[in-house]
């Protein structure tokens, strides 16, 4: 059973065509995002299919995928909550936000996701928005100056099926949607 449905297979060909002829291997990251957008994480079958699309072995694709933190090779929550705890955020209280996120999302440290499959919590390195510390991303949409209380509200909103308004731009509906945007399979 193919991971990518026919219409996404077509998009996969379009993604490959962004790169010079003979250099299609460059499409490995967007194609991995594309399979992630279907399955919610990158499964063995996903790795295999990207390999088929690019003429690479599954091992070659896995070697690439395992290098990058945004490609998830383990079961992943519907929503990925990333809390920056690097220095600029830590100075403004990020460690408490991370602890709160783990608690309210029900994710033990080191666990892939919450028991209900709703959340993955990721202790993030600098997210490049230090003027808004502490910074949290939900499915890669930024939330500025997040306090532990605000973190609770964000988790509550997500549990209630709502997408919290990000501080800038528009938010994807979930991690799969974010992966689709990252693959470039969706217009702006």
């Amino acid at each position, binding site marked *: 059973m193919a991971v990518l449905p026919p219409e996404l297979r077509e998009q996969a060909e379009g993604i490959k065509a*962004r*790169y*010079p002829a003979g*250099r299609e*291997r*460059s*499409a*490995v*990251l*967007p194609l*991995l*995002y594309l399979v992630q957008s279907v399955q919610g994480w990158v499964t063995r079958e996903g790795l295999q299919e990207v390999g088929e699309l*690019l003429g690479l072995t599954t091992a070659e694709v896995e*070697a*690439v995928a395992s*290098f*990058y*933190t*945004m*490609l998830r090779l383990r079961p992943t929550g519907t929503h990925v909550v*990333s809390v920056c*705890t*690097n*220095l*600029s955020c*830590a*100075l*403004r209280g990020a460690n408490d936000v991370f602890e709160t996120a783990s608690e309210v999302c029900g994710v033990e440290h080191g666990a892939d996701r919450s028991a209900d499959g709703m959340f993955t919590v990721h202790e*993030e*390195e*600098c*997210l*490049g*928005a*230090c*003027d*808004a*510390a502490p910074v949290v*991303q939900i499915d*890669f*949409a*930024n939330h500025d100056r997040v306090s532990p209380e605000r973190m609770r509200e964000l988790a509550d909103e997500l549990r209630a099926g709502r997408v919290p308004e*990000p501080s*800038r*731009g*528009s938010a*994807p509906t979930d991690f799969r949607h*974010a992966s689709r*945007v*990252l693959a*470039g399979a969706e*217009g*702006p």
Partner: protein
Amino acid sequence: MAPPDTKVVTATWDDPQVFGLDGYVDRGGYEGLRAALGMTPTEVIDVVKASGLRGRGGAGFPTGVKWSFVPQTTGKPTYVVANFDESEPGTFNNREIVEREPHRFLEGVAIAAYAVQSHTAFVYCRGEFLWPGQILDGAIRDAYADGVFGASVLGSGFELDVVLHRGAGAYICGEETALLSSLEGYRGQPRLRPPFPAVEGLYACPTVINNVETLANVPSIMTNGAEWFAKIGPEKSPGTKLFSVSGKVERAGNYEVPMGTPLRVLLDEHARGVLAGARLKAWTPGGSSTPMLTDEHLDVALDFESVAAAGSLLGTGAIIVMDESDCIVEATRRLIQFYAHESCGKCTPCREGTWWVSRVLARIEHGYGRPEDLPLLDELGHNILFKAFCALADGAVSPIQSSLRYFRDEYEAHIAERRCPFTGKGPGRAAEGTGPPPLTEVLT
């Protein structure tokens, strides 16, 4: 002399009309590209050389000189790669440049491409920058639709394709050779130089790699002239710098000031001082990879030469401010945790060294440090510095060595008191209600 409030990359940020291609063009946008297209590529390179513009991504290499290294006789295609993998801790100016005015940066990309006769430019956008990437995606589409990019750039007959490529979460990909590996579809591991990317870069073809802020400076240089730019700031570090100020300040943000502006001005006049009037303790001039300085360095001029003379580096111009209540050992520990996490694993001194240092710092912070740990940290730093392929390892040594240089007494206090003097946590004289964490928990 140019007036001290001269703005280059943020010149139109306060103008609400400017967003979008039309607004940018109405304010003179893409005139720099038009001017460039009216010159020969060599003339464009000469203008950028004469301006004295130096790379804003950390190394400070003269941009025009970099462009001039690209050979035009290889018979291979030439590439321009814009490095938008901004992830040096404390740095957030590239993100704001793209969010506020993507076309100024894209115009710089097009001018660079024309100068080195590249017909394909890639923008390597950090994966976590989901929204900035969407902005760029839209801006690139608009530029194609209006004939700014495509088969004939602004009707000149010069062909240029601009491709957005998103990363997937790896700090090391900001290092230019690791970025190229990543863009080619491999693990983001650095390559040994030489050959330098200008000769053998993307797909083993001549390649220019520039930072977003660097490229965003180029359009104004083309329209206002090299001399105008060269007169802003000090002679050897001309132009302005968009400094990212964060941490313990009243008003964190990006502030564009002439190169050579002292921290005192940036901190007091722009960031409105240290948070809650506390005393400045330590600060980084250019992100976590640059040695930290102290309140004795408030009057150091923030330009490449002066910061180097003070024993640090201008880096990305990311100023992280720590005040008297912040523990330097914990700050250093957190930064080293970052390098240990982001080390690509290729070189042993970096892969093993950063991990080892992070463990030693964790035990000192939690009150389990040993007197011999400080000479050990000195030695580890020495064994990592300049021993690896790329600068990530050297960057990791900056917080280790600089914190030991200026705050050795604070390390010694942690070890002597067997606790963190700031949190009170640790087996020695633990503060009320905070029992010592078990050693197993500290070192997991």
